[in-house]
């Protein structure tokens, strides 16, 4: 299960609270009635499906309910960053920064959650 950082709640929460919402930064055509069938297929069906770095939308459906964007590696499933909806595509952290983030963001363990709560 993934551990996802909601940029609105500013918390790392389990994947169960989130709903994946497809590729990010796809703009709906201004006048959708005017576009051709090819353009509609492109907008509606065709996706990058990247192997490696992907930008995608998630929704914190069982939390704040808001959509946000994430950069994730589809080979390791590791989140590189999350950022608020409406922001332009963000550059991903470079390798060293990223290693530091990974170090800091350890897996959610029983001791950290239930243990503390007790």
């Amino acid at each position: 299960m993934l551990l996802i950082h909601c940029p609105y709640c500013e918390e790392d929460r389990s994947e169960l609270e989130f709903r994946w919402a497809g590729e990010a930064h796809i703009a709906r055509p201004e006048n959708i009635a005017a576009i051709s069938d090819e353009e509609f297929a492109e907008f509606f069906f065709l996706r990058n499906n990247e192997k490696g770095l992907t930008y995608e939308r998630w929704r914190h459906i069982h939390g704040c309910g808001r959509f946000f964007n994430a950069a994730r590696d589809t080979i390791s499933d590791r989140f590189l960053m999350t950022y608020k909806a409406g922001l332009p595509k963000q550059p991903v952290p470079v390798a060293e920064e990223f290693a530091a983030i990974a170090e800091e963001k350890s897996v959610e363990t029983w001791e950290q959650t239930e243990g503390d709560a007790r």
Partner: protein
Amino acid sequence: MRKYSVFAIAREAMRAHKGWEAQWTSPEPRGAYDVIIVGAGGHGLGAAYYLAKEHGITNIAVIEKGWLGGGNTGRNTTIIRSNYLYEESMDIYEHSLKLWEGLSQDLNYNVMYSPRGVMMLSHNIHDQQVFKRHINANRLYGIDNEWMTPEQAKAFVPVLDISKTARYPINGAALQRRGGTARHDAVAWGFARAAADRGVHIIQNCEVTGIRRGPGGEVQGVETSKGFIGAKKVGVSAAGHSSVVMEMAGVRVPLHSNPLQALVSEPLKPIFPCVVMSNTVHAYISQSDKGELVIGAGTDQYNSYSQTGGLQIITHTLDAICELFPIFRRVKMMRQWGGITDNTPDRSPIQGITPVPGLFLNCGWGTGGFKATPGSANLFAHLIAKGEPHKLASGLTLDRFRTGRLIDEAAAAAVAH
């Protein structure tokens, strides 16, 4: 190649089994072939076999990044059925089921096709109406499928809990008796052996890194980790990696790659006579000939190439299995794994020509590609040989996402394929 038979077994028994030959060869690639198929899973190897057998094209290379049958062919739950709703789907899956029935004889390789029946459980009035609609559509189309009362279902699968107080009460079931299972590895090996026997080159551990195109945009061959290999026709049958391979030719395809998990239990004595699927609570289960319970879970919600998946997905499935079959509550699970499925927006496969001349595509089989293996391979071979789809696969084109003629099995099948 020596034929497998009871006499061969007797002969080898007399001489300490020293005469068995390798089932296929692993040649170095030539500079060029008539046809290259990318991906040596069941679909790709089968296409090479049918090209050689039915279309007389034997100068073929099947190129595989890993080892043959090591992708989704070796990672599925081996369920075979053809009780789909729409004619386009019934055409191709029934074509496949008919080929399954004679496949062991055709390949001279025991693929252990076992028509033990596939039962789909109905839990509510909506399920019941949908399944009866499926049954009627199937029977009108000449495909067997029948409705069972809960008592009849219980008689067929004695370990099923049909009590009124069950967590997931059962109000009936649909049964396709010709559905069943087969041995997944044997399918890949059987096709590989039969194709290699007809001169097909199977090139493993060779990754395709590019697709070379000529001045007119047509395919000239593929760049691989073993160098350039030429061919005027290239068929892509790369399952979860189809969009990665197609990107090399500059073609975008409407696919999402998602992990799909399965797991097996410790081996048990024979207890489970058929395949049972429950779409509503999302669980499917059968028992292999080794005695393991083979259980399929759902896909993860996000795109991934990780060949693994979230633990919550399989625990959800096991919850359902334990409720449906309380007798299995203390069975230990032995292994779990994931494969990468390529899902289309309408959950129906894509098989057809592409905007690139000479480049053919077979993908989008999503979570249900195993059952289609011989049928898909057979029709893909036709497509590559003739340059246009067979009439049974004519609706599966890539173009349908532009024209809007979708085959909406996503809604029709409810979930698991």
